[in-house]
């Protein structure tokens, strides 16, 4: 089958330079995460807490959202609700136009990618300015993030140097990372100083206090939310947590799982706009709560676990599929294992159901997930639903269905099973020919002349 996903994945596998960049980065992130959790027992305790906190938040989601809205309103934050991307974009556009804004400085936000905010703003003559270094690189290259934490992970310093010299011809050419970073600081400085509207995502929204918690290392998130007159924060409705205290274990889990840092350089907790006696900070703070398919996921008790996600990206860092095809191989906003369960649910199985196949079900993702999302189980569930939906549509699924039914019948009838395996053993010389794509890069597996059953019987092992 030549589906879009397969075409994209095949292309991605052919990009050696990108693959090398991603492999190097993922190997580093895996080691950093491991070093950040030296005590396995403590890690498991933290994961218990993370799972319990997120589960509780989801079980009480409507109540917590109302509480969050109430607290935010009391603190002076204006809360908006958006059912889908179009509504969210419209809300944000109205706020910006209401202030006559011509540009917006943006802290990193995957939800803004999800709703296609930059395209919407540009179409209305408003310049979106990505300020996170990785996001800036992506914006200059006119690409989309290939990783939810490190958006430009697929690019190396030489590509970035070339990109910067094309866009900032007056700055001296350099391939040194320190100097490339310094260049980004120089070009962004005036934008931070002169732009009156800022936009950011949210890592956690605390219902109890009406607090928006943001983590970052560069300071661009703080600048985007502090220097302008207006701060617009956008988040999925699932990001709410009940209590301020819950931030403590979640922050520990998030930063260590993501980059192996005990904490990010900045943890920014915003609970309201500037008060009359304060000297700086935005005069208006807006919070946009986005559904965009999340309430549908919430309605299913098993699939709901998808919404526990705190967007640390540990699942993609550890994924054998992600490391080979990279984020762009998936063709969705959220790549990797979390994307493979989230996107088919957000966009529908009809459009993205095949993504559930983009996994070996090795389980590395769920083994590292800080909130214990059972990703392989959810992938299986989505595969099943996708196959059911495809049944009778005359696609390639039919022969697959036949093979599995035959397999199931053979395994349910011992006499048949013995006969079938006897025949396969007789024909073992032919097997190497029949699985050509597999053998192209591997030695053909050989079927043993004698079955495991027979060997075990000979060894005299009991049936237990």
């Amino acid at each position, binding site marked *: 089958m030549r589906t879009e996903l397969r075409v994209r994945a095949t292309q991605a596998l052919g990009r050696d330079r990108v693959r090398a960049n991603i492999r190097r*980065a993922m190997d580093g992130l895996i080691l950093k995460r491991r070093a950040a959790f030296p005590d396995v027992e403590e890690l498991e305790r933290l994961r218990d807490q993370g799972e319990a906190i997120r589960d509780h938040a989801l079980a009480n989601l409507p109540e917590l*959202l109302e509480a969050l809205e109430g607290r935010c309103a009391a603190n002076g934050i204006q809360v908006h609700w958006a059912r889908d991307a179009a509504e969210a974009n419209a809300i944000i556009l109205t706020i910006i136009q209401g202030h006559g804004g011509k540009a917006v400085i943006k802290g990193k936000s995957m939800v803004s990618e999800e709703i296609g905010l930059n395209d919407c703003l540009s179409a209305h003559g408003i310049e979106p300015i990505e300020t996170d270094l990785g996001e800036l690189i992506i914006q200059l290259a006119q690409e989309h993030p290939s990783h939810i934490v490190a958006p430009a992970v697929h690019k190396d310093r030489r590509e970035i140097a070339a990109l910067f010299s094309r866009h900032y011809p007056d700055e001296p050419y350099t391939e040194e990372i320190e100097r*490339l*970073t310094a260049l980004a600081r120089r070009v962004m400085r005036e934008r931070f100083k002169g732009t009156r509207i800022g936009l950011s995502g949210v890592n956690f929204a605390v219902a109890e*206090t009406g607090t928006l918690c943001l983590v970052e290392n560069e300071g*661009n998130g703080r600048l985007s939310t502090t220097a302008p007159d207006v701060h617009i924060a956008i988040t999925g409705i699932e990001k709410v947590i009940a209590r301020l205290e*819950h931030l403590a274990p979640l922050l520990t889990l998030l930063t260590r799982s993501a980059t192996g840092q*005990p*904490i990010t350089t900045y*943890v920014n907790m915003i609970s309201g706009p500037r008060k009359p006696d304060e000297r700086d900070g935005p005069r208006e703070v807006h919070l946009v709560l986005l559904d965009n398919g999340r309430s549908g996921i919430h309605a299913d008790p098993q699939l709901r676990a998808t919404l526990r996600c705190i967007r640390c990206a540990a699942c993609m860092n550890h994924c054998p599929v992600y490391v080979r095809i990279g984020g762009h191989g998936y063709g969705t906003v959220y790549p990797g294992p979390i994307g493979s369960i989230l996107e088919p649910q957000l966009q529908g199985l009809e459009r993205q159901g095949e993504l559930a196949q983009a996994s070996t079900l090795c389980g590395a993702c769920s083994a590292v997930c800080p909130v214990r999302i059972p990703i392989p189980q959810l992938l299986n569930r989505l595969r099943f639903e996708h196959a059911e939906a495809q049944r009778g549509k005359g696609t390639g699924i039919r022969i697959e269905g036949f093979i599995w039914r035959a397999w199931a019948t053979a395994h349910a009838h011992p006499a048949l099973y013995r006969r079938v395996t006897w025949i396969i053993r007789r024909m073992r010389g032919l097997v190497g020919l029949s699985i050509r794509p597999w053998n192209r890069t591997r030695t053909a597996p050989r079927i043993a002349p004698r079955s495991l059953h027979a060997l075990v019987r000979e060894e005299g092992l009991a049936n237990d």
Partner: protein
Amino acid sequence: MTDARRRILQGLRVHAAAKGRAPAIPVRRFEWSQEEAVDRLEQMMQAVRTEVHRVDDAWPQRLAEELTRASARRLYYGAKGPLTGELTAGWPDSAPELVAWEGSIETTRDRLFDEADASFTSARAGIAETGSLVLWPTPAEPRLLSLVPPIHCVLLERRQIVSTLHALMVEERWAAQMPTNALLISGPSKSADIEQTLAYGVHGPERLILLIR
């Protein structure tokens, strides 16, 4: 938009779930002596390139020396900050110029972005576990003071150092009194967005100088 609100909340109530109380998370803390806590904070902050100095009451003199070495010309501070009296009284004549931030950001913005080489603030607490400074910006010490100038200097008292964020939040009852902005700062600004290689000094301060008294 109230329609969106109603529809979203309605959608979330389709299946009533088992509710239950918010999970009680045991407060994480370490039984460190004050000396151990100070050492831990120093070591964690140095690991992310914070310049840590242990100081006595002559700290303004010490800070002035550091800033002179950095060729800083102007140090911004909050006019009514809790340490302002000490800072100005102990500031040597030959040192970088002291500039008090008094007005609103609207009248200070240009100077803060263009002229301030360094800033000075107090801190509310220090967290030993992660090597973090806790700042609650106030009218006396606004938010951008710790963010815009390239060098941020902080004085922290040894007794202000606690073991974990969780313990601090609970003991000080943060949930009942959150300020408009609460911050944890753990080092100068940094990025690893290019080849996962750490580079310091991105959009926030390039240097963080911590004085522990």
